[in-house]
């Protein structure tokens, strides 16, 4: 365990010009959350509410020949039973999944509840609403489903075989834009080409070619999915949902149920973690249909087993990588094939894996082939920097191998090849102003990296990571109150303190304390359209909307003060919460005084803002980890960890550090122990927190953080998304550390104790 030497919070550089930004206020929703008063998804209780439970497929791959619900319906206390037949025909309509884009509706409906075929263990097939959760569970046992079991397809490469069993007879490969001649489990094959590989490899002095694999892993949020629906006889449907995007739920449910969007209000509850997994809908449309049938409110809460069985793992993947470097450590060429599991329906995040893979480096010649492949596992969902850890793991491990061949410092090779503004990325888009070099330099110069690591079976690993981040649409409504405070309503659900990081940007504009901004996350009827909390975009984009709202309120206040003082508005300023004339007559009043005056006059000051910013800037991170390997058991202990990251501008440094630390620890879990373990029948064997081994507090040292600030020119305060990139480097950093500790390179994740022992015995 790391000694407690770093207990002092790491201070970041804050420019003097900001009064609020860069400070560490207590979050606005904090008291609710430390007292147990905050209402999360499963905490919703309504009069007459029923409890819904979902029956799930015991098979990984099976035709559903018939479902008999008669006995379940007859059980005392059961008020409604449903199957996929209760959903309207999806036809060829599409649905919007925010960060994941536009997708066909039919697979989304089928994923919510299987119509003719179950394509993974735990796939929903029917549901019951009853007066207690126990009765609903008893009723599930009375539903009779006749399955015809089919062979499961569990491995991405085997699924790509021409003779593999097919998940969907009507799925044809989109092969570089052309439809394939025969159905396949490969949903798409796409490619990015830059430069000339032949030339690039010819210029290399050393070429390596390796395979890398990532097991299927889960986001692991502690709060299971929960949705409560109340469908009124007048056709209006209200839903309380724990989600990353109330509007995304509204869109999905209105499309699946084919009801007008105006009849549906989604009220987001507090959300107990998401990491990308709470973007798709699961129990939401089910709760709605059960409520319509039962004519009572229905709450559908998953248990942990259901969360593992049927919700968003991220893609298991196969990556083949070939890279060449010169004796001086310059990367001359990289060729890669990425095959990502999509789960039971098309739509893995392989495209983002491709975009991010080489982004930390300026490489002249690259070719990236990307395959989206269906397998009999749950439909994958986004997971923190979706797609990027799988592909960047390969690059970062191979770079370290080159470092050993060339006897070069891992920071040096990264600086030598590091991406800069204007460099053309592998998909043809030039980098904007980015902090790749600055981040790597800060890692090179940090105390941790400069301190030698000593002792047997110990090694230090380094890896970098890139995440593209997202912009997308965000809205806020801000209103000035008579006491000079500002009520701020926002559409972004708050998973990690964003009420405050958004409010801070508005407070900065007006020069008022952040405590004078009262933020709340509101329902879909009460604020403008807002995309999901994802893509590390909320502090960036919703913060920008709040900034604009602040500017609008500021100019309204200046106008009103000018009116009071009968001067031109150009002669009024607002700073530090005080309005003053600038024409030399020294008149002034506080913002609070003006607010009280305007309130009495009945003049409303406020603004509604919607933004869709484009220049979100990419995020870079470089991590340093020290490990110790027990060569007898293969167990890897994390001795020390430092994460360095470009935040653009850290609005609330504590929560930036928190994102970095949380991302690192998810990466450590992914690296060492987390995996979906399927048996030969394709059944998930470890659907519990006992056997799906996420890190506990005892498995970790303190996670040291260094925030680098290379302001993003695409944001008024220079903000870059910070949430996702810290999950990218840990896997490779740890693999590299193991290699340097005990001399074995592991390219398959997780690097579990038995995998380490196996590698060690193969070496000796």
């Amino acid at each position, binding site marked *: *365990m790391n000694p*407690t030497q770093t*207990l002092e919070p790491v201070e970041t550089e804050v420019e003097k010009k900001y009064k609020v930004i860069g400070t*560490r206020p*207590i*979050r606005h*929703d*904090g*008291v609710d*959350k*430390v*007292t*147990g*008063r*905050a*209402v*999360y998804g*499963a*905490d919703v*209780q309504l009069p007459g509410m029923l409890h819904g439970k979902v029956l799930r497929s015991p098979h990984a791959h099976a035709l559903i020949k018939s479902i008999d619900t008669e006995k379940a319906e007859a059980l005392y206390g059961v008020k409604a039973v449903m199957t996929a037949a209760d959903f309207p025909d999806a036809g060829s309509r599409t649905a919007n999944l925010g960060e994941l884009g536009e997708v066909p509706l039919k697979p989304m409906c089928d994923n919510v509840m299987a119509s003719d075929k179950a394509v993974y263990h735990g796939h929903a097939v029917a549901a019951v609403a009853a007066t207690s959760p*126990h009765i609903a569970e008893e009723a599930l046992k009375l539903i009779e489903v006749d399955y015809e079991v089919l062979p499961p397809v569990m491995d991405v490469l085997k699924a790509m075989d021409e003779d593999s069993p097919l998940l969907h007879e009507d799925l044809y490969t989109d092969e570089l834009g052309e439809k394939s001649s025969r159905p396949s489990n490969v949903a798409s094959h796409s490619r990015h080409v830059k430069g000339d590989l032949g030339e690039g490899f010819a210029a290399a002095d050393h070429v390596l070619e390796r395979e890398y694999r990532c097991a299927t892993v889960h*986001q*692991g*949020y*502690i*709060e*299971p999915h929960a949705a409560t629906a109340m469908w009124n006889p007048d056709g209006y449907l209200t839903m309380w949902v724990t989600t990353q995007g109330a509007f995304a739920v509204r869109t999905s449910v209105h499309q699946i149920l084919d009801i007008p969007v105006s009849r549906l209000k989604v009220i987001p509850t*507090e*959300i*107990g*973690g*998401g*990491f990308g997994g709470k973007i798709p809908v699961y129990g939401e449309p089910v709760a709605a249909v059960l409520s319509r049938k039962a004519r009572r409110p229905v709450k559908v809460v998953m*248990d*942990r087993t259901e969360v593992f069985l049927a919700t968003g793992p991220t893609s298991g993947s196969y990556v083949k990588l070939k890279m060449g470097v010169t004796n001086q450590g310059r990367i001359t060429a990289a060729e890669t094939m990425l095959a990502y599991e999509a789960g039971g329906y098309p739509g893995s995040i392989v495209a983002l894996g491709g975009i991010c893979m080489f982004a930390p480096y300026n490489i002249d010649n690259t070719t990236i082939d990307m395959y989206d492949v269906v397998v009999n596992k749950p439909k994958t969902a986004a997971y923190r920097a979706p797609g990027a850890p799988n592909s960047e793991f390969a690059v970062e491990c191979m770079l370290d191998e080159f470092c050993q061949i060339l006897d070069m410092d891992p920071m040096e090779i990264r600086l030598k090849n590091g991406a800069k503004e204007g460099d053309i990325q592998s998909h043809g888009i030039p980098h904007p102003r980015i902090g790749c070099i600055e981040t790597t330099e800060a890692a090179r110069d940090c105390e941790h990296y400069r301190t030698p690591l000593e002792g047997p079976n110990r090694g230090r690993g380094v890896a970098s990571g890139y995440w593209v981040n997202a912009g997308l649409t965000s809205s806020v409504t801000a209103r000035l109150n008579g006491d000079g405070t500002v009520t701020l309503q926002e559409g972004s659900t708050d*998973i*990690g*303190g964003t009420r405050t990081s958004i409010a801070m940007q508005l407070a900065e504009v007006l020069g008022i304390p952040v405590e004078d901004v009262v933020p709340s996350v509101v329902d879909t009827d009460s604020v403008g359209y807002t995309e999901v909390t994802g893509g590390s975009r909320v502090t960036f984009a919703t913060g920008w909307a709040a900034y604009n709202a602040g500017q609008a309120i500021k100019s309204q206040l200046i106008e009103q003060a000018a009116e009071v003082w009968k001067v031109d508005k150009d002669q009024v300023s607002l700073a530090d919460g005080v309005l003053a004339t600038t024409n030399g007559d020294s008149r002034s009043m506080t913002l609070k005084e003006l607010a009280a005056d305007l309130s009495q006059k009945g003049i409303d000051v406020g603004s509604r803002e919607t933004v869709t910013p484009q220049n979100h800037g990419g995020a870079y991170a470089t991590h340093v980890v020290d490990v110790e390997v027990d060569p007898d058991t293969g167990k890897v202990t994390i001795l020390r960890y430092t994460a360095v990251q470009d935040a653009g501008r850290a609005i*609330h440094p*504590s*929560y930036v*550090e*928190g*994102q970095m*630390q*949380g*991302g*690192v*620890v*998810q990466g450590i879990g992914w690296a060492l122990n987390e995996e979906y373990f399927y048996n030969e029948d394709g059944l998930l064997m470890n659907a*519990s*927190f*006992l056997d799906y081994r*996420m890190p*506990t*507090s*005892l498995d*970790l040292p*303190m*996670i040291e953080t260094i925030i680098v600030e290379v302001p993003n020119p695409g944001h008024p305060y220079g903000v870059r998304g910070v949430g996702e990139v810290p999950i990218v480097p840990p896997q490779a950093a740890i693999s590299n550390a193991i290699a340097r500790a005990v001399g074995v390179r592991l390219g398959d994740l997780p690097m579990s104790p038995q995998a380490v022992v196996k590698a060690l015995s193969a070496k000796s």
Partner: protein
Amino acid sequence: MASKVHVAATINGEPVEFLCEPRQSLLEVLRDELKLTGSKEGCNNGNCGACSVILDGLLVDACIVLGAEVDGCTVETIEGLMGSEGLHPLQQTFLENAALQCGICTPGFIMAGKALLEKNPQASEGDIRHWCAGNLCRCTGYDKIVRAILDAEPQLEVKK
């Protein structure tokens, strides 16, 4: 159906009587019958600690205690932590240290921290990590949680 049992317990200092089905866990009773939803269900099998409460002075997972078992017992939940003088020091240090992100594990961690510091007021970082291994957090990487518990120690000492 099995008949309900009558249970009389002291919950957050108040005498409470309720009827529950024998199959209802203490967590279900707290949340569904007594409307104390501050204790959370994360796993329902004793592997995440989100439902941690203090039963007769011992930290337990309420999901693997039957409601019927607490007859005659004392139960402390997150709802009872705030006294007349305001937030408990642990609640305050969790806020000051940004020791929560999504907050779903927070009530369980605070109850775990309370039970620890009552037993070991000078718990070290290692003691805290060991004690809290049954409480999962997926957001914070535990760093700021450990610091928050350490920070509460001198404040609790002063209170004594």
